[in-house]
Every structure is written in structure tokens, then in C-alpha cells.
């Protein structure tokens, strides 16, 4: 079987690489069609991302995306499509910011309070979808889509300056009460030709979340039940998994982590919730990245970096007269080709295995026959 394992590994790696190449080829075609030089476009992106400051930007963006993707992946692992990560993360960030702004506490306490609030709010928001699914059989896909819209409205309402919003003098960008410095999550300073930039310190938390995710899933009985429920609900039920509760748990977990998505930005950068700081759509990006990373913590890390790279180097296209949407298209193409590649590889692997088993079985059978004959 070792043979098969190694092969599995090779195939698993082959898929994404192949997919990215295909996607690049396709998008080059598109660029070329618009009468521009694709090589030049790629060169611009790479060259730009070679700058230290761009790399800092990429890392920071990747941190956010990583958390988003992990939040989605937890759902995926048991066939739950938490399309609602987007709403969960925004409402969580907003309320966490408001709570954090309302109090002043010693640093660690203050931050813990904010993080806990964020996790709880995210969990509650996804929990609604969870309960609707377990108790009323409402498809989480639809309910979470609806909840996203509701979250947007609710945030807008709460952000009224009569409520949680405050309006900095002269500005018209409503924000929440700015956080006290005690809630400033220290970053890693990087000096870029005279200017100092910071890599989110939260990146370590993100890594921790990833590791936790891995262990929870592969090393605990809970994780096993969760994966079982994802692999075959009927089998899980028969094996004693309370799938309803599982749905709820993984929904809550997913939402809880979704709550963390906004934290790097909140604690490391903006120190208050402003609509512009926490854009909609991150949740959907998370879905795409979770797919790229095959719902696997390490894979997701690569996915997040790739996505952040495309995001961050796109402006340089714009800057040099290329359409920056090329990057978006590339992202879309990558997702599609990746999922296709994975599916093909999966099938191929299964068939090969079956044949192997089949052959070995047949041999065994022949041996029997000869024995009988003897």
C-alpha cells in the first residue's frame, strides 16, 4: 500500500499545480486577446510583489483570508455550506469593536474580552442557521445567504450615530468608539525604505487556529465524528453520532472562527469598526480559498497566500495600464480548474486502487482454485 500512498501524495500535489498552470494559461489567453502582453502582466505582478512593503501587505491580507477559509472549511468538512461567513464576520467585528470601545481594561483582558465577544457573536449568527437546519430543516445555503443580507441591514442600523456609531468631527465615515491602546495587538515592525510597516501579530493566532483545526479534526473523537457525519450521514447516525448536534456544533465552530476574521484588522490596524475597514465579500473569498486548500489547514495557507498575492499585486497592473480585473478573472479560473482537477484526481485514484485490489483478489482466488485442484 505504501506505493498507493506515495502516489496519492503525488496526485494531491499535482492537482493544484496543474490547475494553477491551466488557469494562468487561460488568463494569458484573455490578456493576449485584449492586445496586451500577458508575460508583461505577470512580470509586473511578480516584480511588484518582490517589494518588502507589498509582501507585508500580502501577509496581512493572507492572515484575514486564512481565518475566513478555515471558518468555511469546518463547515465543508461535514458537508455544510456556510455561505454566511461573510455576514458572521462583519457583525462580529462590529459588535466586538463596540464592546471593546466601551470599556478600558488592562491589555490582555481587554483583548480577550474583544476576542470572546467576536467569537460569540459570530457563533450566534451562524447558530441561527444551524438551528434552522436542525429544527426546521431549512437548507443552510439559503438561510445563510439571507442572514448575510440581514446582517448588513442590522449593522447599518446599529451604526447609526444615535446608537453604537460615532462620527469623527468633520468626517462622514461612521465608526465605533475607537479602542483604547490597551487593545492594540502588537505587530512585527518591518522597515521599508525609511517607512516602518507592521505585519499583523495576529498572524500567530491564525497559525494557532490552523493547527488547532488540524488536531481537532484528525486527532480527536469529536473530529472523527464530525468527519464521519460529513462522509456519510447515514453511517454516522448508525455509528451513534448525533448528526443534528454535529450540524449545530460545526455551524457554531465555523461561526466562532468567522468571528475572528475581522480581528487582525480591528486589533492591529483600524482600532475601530468602520464599514470600509471590514468589506463584504471576504467570506466568499474564504469559500474559494477553502476549496483551493482542499479544506486542509496547510493547503488553505497556500491558497490564502496565492489569493492575497493576486489581490495585492493587481493594483500594479492598473498602475501600468493593464486591466486589474485580470487578477479577479485569474482567481475565478483558478478556483474552477482546481475543483475540476481535484475531482478528476480523486476518481482516478479510486479507480486505480480498485483495480489493484481487484487484481490482488483475483490472484488470491486463482491460488484457491489451484489449491482445490490439488
Amino acid at each position, binding site marked *: 500500500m505504501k506505493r498507493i500512498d506515495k502516489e496519492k501524495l503525488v496526485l494531491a500535489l499535482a492537482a493544484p499545480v496543474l490547475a494553477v498552470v491551466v488557469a494562468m494559461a487561460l488568463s494569458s489567453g484573455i490578456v493576449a486577446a485584449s492586445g496586451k502582453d500577458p508575460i508583461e502582466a505577470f512580470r509586473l505582478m511578480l516584480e511588484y510583489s518582490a517589494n518588502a512593503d507589498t509582501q507585508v501587505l500580502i501577509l496581512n491580507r493572507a492572515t484575514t483570508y486564512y481565518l475566513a477559509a478555515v471558518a468555511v472549511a469546518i463547515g465543508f468538512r461535514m458537508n455544510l455550506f456556510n455561505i454566511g461567513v461573510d455576514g458572521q464576520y462583519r457583525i462580529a467585528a462590529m459588535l466586538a469593536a463596540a464592546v471593546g470601545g466601551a470599556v478600558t481594561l488592562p491589555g490582555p483582558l481587554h483583548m480577550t474580552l474583544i476576542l470572546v465577544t467576536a467569537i460569540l457573536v459570530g457563533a450566534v449568527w451562524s447558530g441561527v442557521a444551524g438551528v434552522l437546519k436542525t429544527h426546521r430543516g431549512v437548507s443552510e445555503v439559503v438561510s445563510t445567504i439571507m442572514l448575510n443580507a440581514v446582517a448588513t441591514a442590522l449593522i447599518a442600523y446599529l451604526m447609526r450615530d444615535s446608537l453604537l456609531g460615532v462620527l469623527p468631527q468633520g468626517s462622514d465615515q461612521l465608526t465605533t468608539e475607537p479602542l483604547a491602546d490597551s487593545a492594540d495587538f502588537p505587530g512585527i515592525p518591518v522597515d521599508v525604505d525609511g517607512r516602518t510597516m507592521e505585519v499583523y501579530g495576529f498572524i500567530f493566532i491564525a497559525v494557532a487556529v490552523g493547527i488547532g483545526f488540524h488536531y481537532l479534526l484528525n486527532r480527536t473523537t469529536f473530529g472523527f465524528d464530525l468527519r*464521519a457525519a460529513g462522509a456519510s450521514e447515514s453511517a454516522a447516525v448508525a455509528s*451513534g453520532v448525533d448528526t443534528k448536534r454535529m450540524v449545530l456544533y460545526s455551524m457554531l465552530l465555523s461561526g466562532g472562527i468567522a468571528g475572528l476574521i475581522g480581528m487582525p484588522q480591528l486589533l492591529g490596524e483600524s482600532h475601530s469598526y468602520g464599514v470600509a475597514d471590514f468589506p463584504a465579500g471576504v467570506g466568499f473569498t474564504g469559500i474559494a480559498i477553502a476549496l483551493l486548500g482542499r479544506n486542509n489547514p496547510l493547503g488553505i495557507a497556500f491558497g490564502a497566500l496565492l489569493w492575497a498575492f493576486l489581490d495585492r499585486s493587481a493594483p500594479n497592473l492598473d498602475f501600468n495600464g493593464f486591466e486589474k480585473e485580470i487578477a479577479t478573472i485569474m482567481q475565478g479560473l483558478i478556483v474552477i480548474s482546481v475543483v475540476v482537477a481535484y475531482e478528476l484526481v480523486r476518481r482516478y485514484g479510486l479507480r486505480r486502487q480498485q483495480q489493484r485490489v481487484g487484481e490482488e483478489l483475483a490472484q488470491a482466488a486463482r491460488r484457491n482454485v489451484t489449491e482445490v485442484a490439488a
Partner: protein
Amino acid sequence: MHAIVGENGAGKSTLMKILYGMQRPDEGTIAIDGEQVSLHTPSDAIARGIGMVHQHFMLADNLTVLENTVLGAEKRHGIRDAARARMREISDAYGLGIRPDALVEDLGVADRQRVEILKVLYRGARILILDEPTAVLVPQEVDALFANLRELKSEGLTVIFISHKLDEVLSVADEITVIRRGTTVASVLPGDVNARQLAELMVGSELPSPQTRESTVTDTPMLTVTELGLGGDENGRRLLDGVSFTIHRGEVLGIAGVEGNGQTELIDVLIGARPADEGTVVLGEQDVTAWPTRRRREGGVGYIPEDRHRHGLLLESPLWENRILGHVGESPNSKGPWLDPRAARADTRRIVEEYDVRTPGIEVTAASLSGGNQQKLIVGREMSHHPRLLIAAHPTRGVDVGAQAQIWDQIRAARREGLAVLLISADLDELIGLSDTIRVMYRGRLVADADPATVTSQELGSAMTGAAAGHLEHHEPGDADTEGGTAPEGAPPSGGTAAPGSGAGADTSPDTGPDAGPDTSPDAGPDTGPDAAADTGEER
């Protein structure tokens, strides 16, 4: 009428699928009426007058019988009245008793079987392929089916059928082909062989000798079920109704019954997948009625599910993870909340070894094992945790004779150590061979019981169709639980003779035609109940 026999995985279905154009042969030729043909799709086959009734029903539950029948053959008589009329013709001609506008999901197994046959005839097939048509039928229904088939044969149709039940093969087939591991090993005439020889041809080795029954029944009850009742559908029929019995240590209680008469529900209730509406379940000393599945299974309930692919395995996971399934909280699989993959792997190797699971290793996915070997793995897994009670549903369905014997031995051995077994099986010989006591389940009730020592499959069959209930000594639930274990006096022969006619009448209603409503509709209960449940489950 040509019969094909062979152990599971021998390639029978595959061969038939090739004849029917659903799979392509790598080499070789097919000739119809001496003319060579190449069949790429089922349509080609249909066009050449080949029709197939598949091993697993090929019906769309949510469509009507009419829709299921005309699907793909709309050109013949459209999809409305003309078609309906034509269906009635055929149905009456062969006494199939079809109701064109019933929803398939409301039909019982036997009726579905007939719909399948009607589908084939409707397409004017001259060559009829039936893959294990009798697997799910009770003897009376089998007789009815073969009666139909003889009709067809006399009309000049060719019938190819596959079966694991060698006696029926011998009785109806004109010629028999035996295949093993994808090749023809023999082609014989029914006259020249007996069942044992045939079976040996199939397996290519001696058969396990017929079991000798030595009773190990003790009088310490292990499972005591009292007055179980469950649900009820639109027409108010209960899925389970006043079910009571006791299984003692070392006892095998067999439950006979046509599928869809509450066996599945009974199992669900016993393993806790579904709460009973009333009644209690007592395991050993403890009342486990309120326990969730996980607690019951860790409390010593082993479970060999009816459908291994849906309930027994994670097909895309490696064997060792499948070994953990259902016992994740128990050693060697885990320590506290932490999994222990190393130990689990080691123990999986042991199981593969001891239970002779034919696999090159424990890292292969369960899907790549053959059904029989999958089943052996499951049995091994369940036995490894020394259950106090084993719930075995069709433990050897779709398993070849060799594996069958192994599994039986496992069960007997465990029984000797005082295991209590609830055995549910459609294979009456298996029931009679293994059980210490047999109860018959019909429409959610335990309507009869029999002593395996004396009862015949004919008698059981009639009881299963509800026909012979009156003739067997029927215990009211009240006292049933106390005497459940003890063997009652066998059924009077009249039960056997009374059976076929009334049996057919009660369940198949051959010639009553469309207005057979009253007796077929009750079947809706067991069928729709689970379905309805499944539907909300299937929400995306």
C-alpha cells in the same frame, strides 16, 4: 429459461449490464438470433428487444407507475391515456395487477418488482434479463413471479435470470451457466446436478457442512422489549405496534418478515436512531429506552446493518478509519477525547487477519473492497468489542457462500460465549438455521412465532404475508414478553396449504386490477414513513 449462478462479485451483474449495453466489454462478441451486435447504450439493447430487471430496483419513487413505465419509451403510446390503456392490457394479460397512477414510493417490494417487469414488457422485449429478482420476495411471491415468467416463456420470450437460491434455479431453469470471478466455469442442465454440486461449482471448493444445532440459550434475559409502538402515517397505520420480546444470553432470536413490515423501524428503535413513541427497551438490567445510540452501542450493542454501504461504512475512508466507526469512544481506538490511530491501525490488521478480509492493506478505501469483504470487516469490527447484544440485519446478504459460512460461525461462536443475537433476515434458511426462536413480523406487529426445529419456510412464508397468522399460535403482546423465548408448537400443516392462495390474495392481488387499492395502500406505511423522514434530512 436460462439461469446464471455464481458467487457474489463473480461478474453476473456485470455480464448482464454488458448484455444490456450499460457497460462495454473489453473484448468478445454478442450475437442475437445468430446476428452479431454491438450494444453501446441501453437504448441499443432495448431496440434489439432486450429488457432488464436490475438487481436493485430502477424506479423513481417520486414519479407514478405510469411515468416510470413510459419513461424512455414515450414514442410507443405517448405518456397519457393510450399508454395507460396499453399498461392495463399487459398487466391483465400477465396478471400483474398494476395501478398506473400510484406513486411508486407507495408500493411494496413485490409490486415494485412487477412494475419493473411491466416496464420491460411495455417495451416489447423478447429477451428478458432478471438479476436476482427473488432476493426480496417471500416464497408465495416467488411462485407468483415464476408463474408470470412461465407465461412469458410460453409466449416465446427468452428469460435469463440470476439467483443465489439454487433450489429455485434448479426447479425453473432449462439451462444453467455457472460463472466464477468473471469466467464461465460450467454450463449444466438442471437434471444433471443437485444443489450441492452446483454450489461447489460456484465456490470452487467444498461447502461448509450444514450446521448442527446445540442450544446455548440461558435464562438470564439480555434484551427485553415491551410494548414498543412507533408513529403512524396518514392512514393511521402504526410502523410498530405493541412489539414485545425477550432475548436471553446465548439466544438467537430470528425475525422473519417481508421487507417494509417494520423490521427497519424496529432496528432503528433498538439502536436508538429513532425514539419509540411508547414501550421500553431493557438491556441486561438497565432500562436504555432513553439512551442515545452512542451510549447504547458503547453499552454493548453490536450492529451489523442491513445496508453496509449506507449504514456500515465510510466508503471513501481507509479501512482503519472504518474500524473506528461506531466505536470511536472505545479502546483501542481512542484514549479519552484523543484518537489513537496507531493502536486502531494495529487492531485493524488483526481483524483483517482473523476474519480473512481479502485486502492488500488497511490504507485502501472501503469502497475498493468487494461487498463480501466489506461485510467481513464489519462483522470483525463489531465482534472485536465483545457486544452483549448483536443486532444483525441480513448479515450475509450479497455475500458469497464461503464468507457466509464464516460469518455464521462467528455468530455461533459468540453465542456460545453468551451473546444475545437479534437476527433479521430475508433468507429463511439462514433464519431457520441460526435462530433458537423465530418471530414473524407483519405490518408492524409480531403476529406469530415458530420453532425453527419444526417450521418450514413455506409456513413462515404464509405467516409473513399475514395469511397464516390466524393458524399459528399467536401470543397477545401481554404474555408474549414473558414466553417470547420459549419455543411454541409448530404450525399445523393446514397453515402451509392455506398460505399460497390467501398469501397472494393479501399482498399481490394478481387479478383484482386497478381497484386493488385497499390492500396495497397499507404498504405505504412502512415505505413512506422512513421516506418522509429522509426527505427533510435530504435538505441541502
